[in-house]
């Protein structure tokens, strides 16, 4: 949005028209609220104002408010966003600001989506680190220039906010698909020389719901608030799995 249009639509000191989805697993709908607008107001500030002043029973999730914990992601005007770092003036349009629970996940209540499936898939992709050494061994020396370390580095700053999962049309069409976050995590571990579950993880990510279902729409990359590129990580997993299979499971 142009700077001029931003100031035209966003006037601190006046009010904002907001629509918030309220309901539970059995259904629900949008409720309208009028919220005082303020300078540097985030979408999370708007939700908090509504809960503290208008709708005490409104349910939502947040913790750190500084873009580190990954718990406050919601759909804002139909797009998944980390609400604590999304300024209202960046997303406001002619219509009321529309806030809803994350797409592609069941809802528990109001703006709180049920994250169980998201983290179950993270585990199914073998997202856990498997140490290859004990505390008695020397610390692994890994140069920051090492190619595998560089590959992991590019993908490692994931906060598990599930924005990519909500953005992914392949997840929407294929509920068994592990999704971008879980596969991105698996890719960072496949690039970790200290990890000891390379072969098992490769099996996990190349099974029925794994990396081969990705159609490279790149929505995950477009919406990732930390500007990661899960599509590239998934392409890396496709290559690893395919070459490992073609060379008899020896490649690493």
């Amino acid at each position, binding site marked *: 949005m142009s700077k001029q249009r931003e100031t035209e639509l966003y006037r601190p000191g006046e009010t904002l028209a907001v629509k918030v989805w309220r309901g539970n697993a059995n259904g629900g709908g949008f409720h309208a609220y009028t919220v005082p607008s303020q300078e540097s107001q985030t979408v999370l500030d708007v939700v908090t104002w509504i809960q503290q002043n208008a709708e005490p029973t409104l349910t939502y999730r947040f913790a750190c408010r500084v873009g580190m914990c990954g718990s406050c992601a919601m759909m804002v005007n139909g797009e998944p966003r980390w609400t604590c770092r999304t300024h209202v003036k960046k997303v406001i349009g002619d219509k009321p600001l529309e806030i809803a629970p994350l797409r592609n996940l069941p809802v528990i209540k109001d703006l709180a989506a049920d994250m169980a499936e998201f983290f179950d898939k993270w585990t199914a992709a073998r997202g856990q680190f498997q140490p290859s050494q004990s505390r008695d061994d020397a610390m692994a020396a890994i140069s920051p220039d090492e190619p595998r370390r560089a590959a992991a580095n590019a993908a490692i700053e994931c906060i598990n906010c599930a924005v990519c999962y909500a953005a992914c049309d392949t997840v929407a069409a294929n509920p*068994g698909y592990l999704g971008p976050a879980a596969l991105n995590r698996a890719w960072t571990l496949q690039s970790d020389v200290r990890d000891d579950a390379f072969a098992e993880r490769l099996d996990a990510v190349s099974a029925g*719901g794994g990396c*081969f279902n990705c159609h490279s729409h790149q929505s995950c990359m477009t919406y990732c608030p930390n500007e990661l590129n899960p599509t590239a990580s998934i392409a890396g997993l*496709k290559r690893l799995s*395919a070459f490992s299979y073609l060379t008899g499971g020896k490649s690493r």
Partner: protein
Amino acid sequence: MIGLRLYLAQRISALVMAPLVIGHIAVMIYAVQNGLSAVEILSRTQGSLWWGGFYGLFVAAVAVHAAIGVRAIIYETFGTHVRWLDPLTWTIGLGLFLLGGRAVAAVVL
């Protein structure tokens, strides 16, 4: 649901077909210039081991490629139960292979 083997079959058939499609397009543009006729097509293809191999490989690769592609579309569009996907994929692939094989036989033999 696409696993490792289906993915490899899909991508290898794609790699095989890329030059074949380019060849096919080139032949089409060349052959269509003076209008198509059965005599013209058959004079090029009949008894030719080269064209038999070209189109035979093409048909085999496209049967694999199309069957897996349509499988993914059906699964993602209709949420078809996984149990039906394998028989469906095989039916499409074999059907295309047989029809295509008959067409190759018709123009080469």
